[in-house]
């Protein structure tokens, strides 16, 4: 998350995803690459935002890291995922179970469907603590209460015995965070954690996650489509489209100087609250998000791109380094000058 102190020290990344390819076998004949050659790194204490629309592959990327792809149809078909230098794509179910929760925690979008309705919050948090930390039942319960307190739930000693349905949406999301953090994972993956929440509760959640990151020093991968949230929490941003990374840069760079037309289009298509330009007509991106079963040839964004030329329709551009840790997947990035957003 955003700190006033300088960027976290580089070195070996905590998580390194390289050329990740995730394949879904929809039928005997039809396979799709939901994630197609995605690479990024996350360091300790850093927040990486993955931005994309439905079908961009952002959630599948996180499920691939967690080893939670639907069995039988989904698999990591190429590439590597290294946790602190250790390859985790080839691990067995048992080995992955040791990593989930303990090394990597995850928060899902819908707390109602990702909490078990027939167990109390306390049981669900304690279950994980007992599994990973070998504590007794009583100690695990005490730890669960401690975690609920940490995430700002009032009367945690009572709330620990609540079932999910007895809690409000904001409280459930806090309980989810408590569960994800109970074993102090080094990486937290948050998949649209605030999308289903009201802005006032969202503000509480973002502040909470920021506090906890300061306290525990974990890395956060924050998956979202809300650019306002990205600007607030991220250190680095990965923009995905059609299963691929199309641009990645520091948060300042990507907002001030988006170089890939899709990123620039997204920035211009959102109404900005309280800005004088907001009465201007929005610059909509034409067309629709492509289905992974019918991706266009060449650049996957070209049918919607105002800058597309003939080369864009045939050749898939590679992700190129444009200096300053800024990577761009666009055949024309050198010649295009997309409007640099003025700080208003």
């Amino acid at each position, binding site marked *: 998350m955003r700190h006033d102190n300088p960027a976290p020290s580089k070195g070996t990344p905590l998580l390194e995803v390289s050329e990740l390819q995730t394949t879904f076998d929809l039928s005997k004949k039809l396979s799709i690459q939901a994630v197609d050659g995605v690479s990024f790194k996350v360091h300790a204490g850093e927040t990486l935002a993955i931005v994309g629309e439905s079908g961009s592959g952002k959630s599948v990327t996180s499920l691939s890291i967690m080893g939670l792809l639907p069995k039988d149809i989904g698999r990591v078909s190429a590439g590597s995922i290294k946790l602190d230098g250790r390859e985790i794509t080839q691990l067995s179910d048992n080995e992955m179970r040791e990593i989930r929760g303990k090394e990597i925690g995850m928060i899902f979008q819908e707390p109602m469907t990702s909490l078990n309705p027939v167990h109390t919050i306390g049981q669900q948090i304690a279950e994980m603590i007992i599994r990973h930390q070998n504590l007794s039942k009583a100690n695990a319960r005490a730890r669960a209460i401690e975690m609920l307190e940490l995430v700002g739930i*009032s009367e945690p000693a009572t709330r620990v015995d609540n079932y999910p349905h007895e809690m409000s949406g904001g409280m459930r999301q806090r309980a989810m965070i408590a569960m994800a953090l109970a074993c102090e994972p080094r990486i937290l993956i948050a998949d649209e954690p605030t999308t289903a929440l009201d802005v006032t509760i969202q*503000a*509480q959640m973002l502040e909470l996650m920021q506090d906890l990151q300061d306290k525990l020093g974990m890395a956060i991968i924050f998956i979202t*489509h809300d650019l306002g949230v990205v*600007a*607030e929490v991220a250190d680095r941003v990965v923009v995905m489209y059609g299963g691929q990374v199309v641009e990645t840069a520091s948060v300042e760079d990507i907002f001030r100087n988006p170089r890939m037309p899709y990123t620039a289009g997204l920035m211009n298509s959102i109404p900005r609250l309280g800005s004088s330009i907001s009465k201007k007509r929005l610059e*909509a991106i034409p067309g629709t998000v492509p289905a992974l079963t019918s991706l266009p040839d060449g650049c996957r964004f070209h049918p919607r791109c105002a800058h597309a030329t003939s080369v864009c329709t045939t050749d898939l551009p590679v992700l190129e380094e444009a200096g300053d840790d800024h990577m761009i997947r666009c055949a024309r990035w050198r010649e295009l000058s997309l409007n640099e957003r003025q700080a208003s």
Partner: protein
Amino acid sequence: MTIPLLQVENLRKYFPIHGGVLQRVVNNVKAVDGVSFDINAGEVVGLVGESGSGKTTVGRTILRLEDATDGAVRFGGTDVISLGASDMRAYRKRMQIIFQDPYASLNPREKVRDILVHPLKLHRIGHPSEHEDRAAALLEKVGLSRDHLDRFPHEFSGGQRQRIGIARALAVEPEFIVADEPVSALDVSIQAQVINLLEDLKSELDLTMLFIAHDLGVVEHICDRVIVMYLGRVMEIASASDLYARPNHPYTKALLSAVPIPEPGKRRKRVMLKGDIPSPINPPSGCVFRTRCPMATDECAKVVPELKSVGKGHTSACIHTT
């Protein structure tokens, strides 16, 4: 001054809770509790608030998709709440709705042609021989084409479905439309397309609209005036520019300050609200916002604050602000 097209007066909608062996009414969910506002012809008015604030129920009750518990909804001077079923039908033609979920609000077994022709048949608009041309014209108006008439909803993307939903609402040439979160189910890059379409239609057809949304950026962009609701009551009403530049009510201030700014390094000074919205079954006494309000005093528990004028066309329901 002309009469507003729509006048909502002291509207209440309670949903009864049944309990006990005899299933008596033991309590009420006070979804809408004494809401009043006007909408002038040609105006787009935003209705914002957190989930549970009653904004959707207001929209549905105005259209009589829910029966009001109390209050009046005058449309062109006539109270539609008291109309019988047959009289209401004439008003249904004049008031339409665009739903939030473009996946759930279109019948999956009907072709687009039927979806658009049904309202024409129902309200006996035009000769049946013209219906197909009218349907095609509607599709063109919302950025689709005649070729789409014979397709089913599943053949369209979310954004295109929402366009069909808009075309259906426009089919009977209504004077007033309730748009209930029309873009919140859409992808970010598609939202702008639909917002632009609604703006074009607004200026082209001189539509009057109640625009229900929780995205304050979208509301500021498209609306002339904004109504802020909390727990079934109106907290503040102002022109869109006034509300964002000079919010008066502590709730409005908190709500606006919570919206993240899409610009790194910048952040509004937050008024952090504690906890969640209380249950509408047992709302706090006095001002319903007082349990989360940073300015609340003992006085707030005693009186229900009235909407009072705090500027030109700007009203706010708080005893502590001027």
